[in-house]
């Protein structure tokens, strides 16, 4: 019969794993490189997507006018970071309108920073938040205008 390895050898083999799991759990929040890897740790009945429209109501694709760092996924990250950083509640389409407007303002400023306005072929940048939710086994959504910014070309 094979002899089991001594407990201290097993501990040594798993020491870094135990350290990482325990330290990240004790820290209890995101503190790079300690993380609880919270991606999709719950499935709430809402999901948000931010998007742009011009003054005519046409979709403005992020990829057409902005670099990769300002695509829809990244913009959504900034949206959530705004609420997390300020400790404001976020979700289920129930944000405080003042917070929502301020988040929209910061995101729009981030989008337009370092961009040459002459490349835009629209006069107004409207930032919308789409709120998806499930009701009676059907997917529904609601679009809310959260910020409007005129473009000076």
């Amino acid at each position, binding site marked *: 019969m094979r002899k089991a390895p001594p407990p201290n050898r097993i501990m040594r*083999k*798993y*020491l*870094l*794993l135990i350290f*990482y*799991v325990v330290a*990240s*759990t004790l820290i209890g929040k*995101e*503190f*790079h*490189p*300690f*993380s*609880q*890897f*919270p*991606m*999709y*740790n*719950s*499935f*709430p*009945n*809402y*999901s948000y*997507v*931010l*998007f*742009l429209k011009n003054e005519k109501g046409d*979709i403005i*694709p*992020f*990829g*057409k006018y902005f*670099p*990769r*760092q*300002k*695509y*829809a*996924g*990244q913009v959504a*990250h*900034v949206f*959530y*970071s*705004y609420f*997390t*950083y300020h400790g404001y509640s976020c979700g289920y389409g129930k944000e405080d309108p003042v917070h929502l407007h301020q988040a929209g303002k*910061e995101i729009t400023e*981030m989008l337009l*920073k*370092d961009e040459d306005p002459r490349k835009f072929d629209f006069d107004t940048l409207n930032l919308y938040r*789409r709120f*998806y*939710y*499930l009701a009676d086994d059907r*997917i529904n959504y609601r679009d809310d205008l959260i910020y409007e910014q005129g473009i000076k070309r």
Partner: protein
Amino acid sequence: MNKVLSGKYWTSYTSPEWMAIKISTAVFWLMILHSSNINMEAIPYPCGIFSVVNASFLASKYTLPVSSAFALLLAVLYIAEKRMAITTFLMFLLSLVLFTLEESNGILNRNSLYTMIFLAQAIAYYRNGTRLNEERIQFPIQFIAGGYILAGLSKLKVSGLGWVSDAPLVSIQILKGYCYNYFTTGDIKQLQRGMMQAGFVLNHKLIIECMCGGSLFLELFAWIAVKNKLTAFVYGVLLTCMHIGINFAMNILIGAVFFPMLFFMINPLYLIYLLLSRLYASLRPPSAANTDTA
């Protein structure tokens, strides 16, 4: 390929294997650093070390060129196996600063494992023990497995076992992923594909619940991968299947978690090298092979 199937392959790590891991790791590290530290001329949401230390001086137009040049130099030293204890520690520090800078800009790409991999290698090289060849790969695997376990624990902590039964709600998360593509490209097909995929989830709840249950199980038992090279490989294959499933169903691939796992547990670059060597040997004329043998 016979080498892979023989028992000997699973007992130790060879130099070509280590080289393949280093090349994969360094190239991917440079790629994610390059994409993370562009447009970082401000720190609007300080987090991590920047919530403790004021690092506003880092938010400048010089951060990108200086850090890119430094990262390139470190990657070359890393692949060339030069002063590894210092090189890997500096790679850890650079990752720590730049990824924290990225997160402090509100972009959460979950690059923690990459930072920890270099710390693990720095520890292995600092120890410089008789089992260095194994520890420089096994130590990072410990952090990678730890990451998966943390992800599983986080699900249990926040949602409990209800995480599995709530799985049909993933349909609106799936739609979100496709919507990101639609609003980025303007391609309506992305939205249609998302609606179709979300509809599939709602119509096949049991399949999705089984997939989520399987994923949670794999995450919580990721410590098995640490045991030895064989368990790391087998577990790596299972985790790869999980990531492919998630990518297929939800259109999401968290590269900063998936790729380190792939490089250290499966090492595809080395498998390709083995395959090509085998192919090359079989294509060579017998006389050349005989000469070599002689």
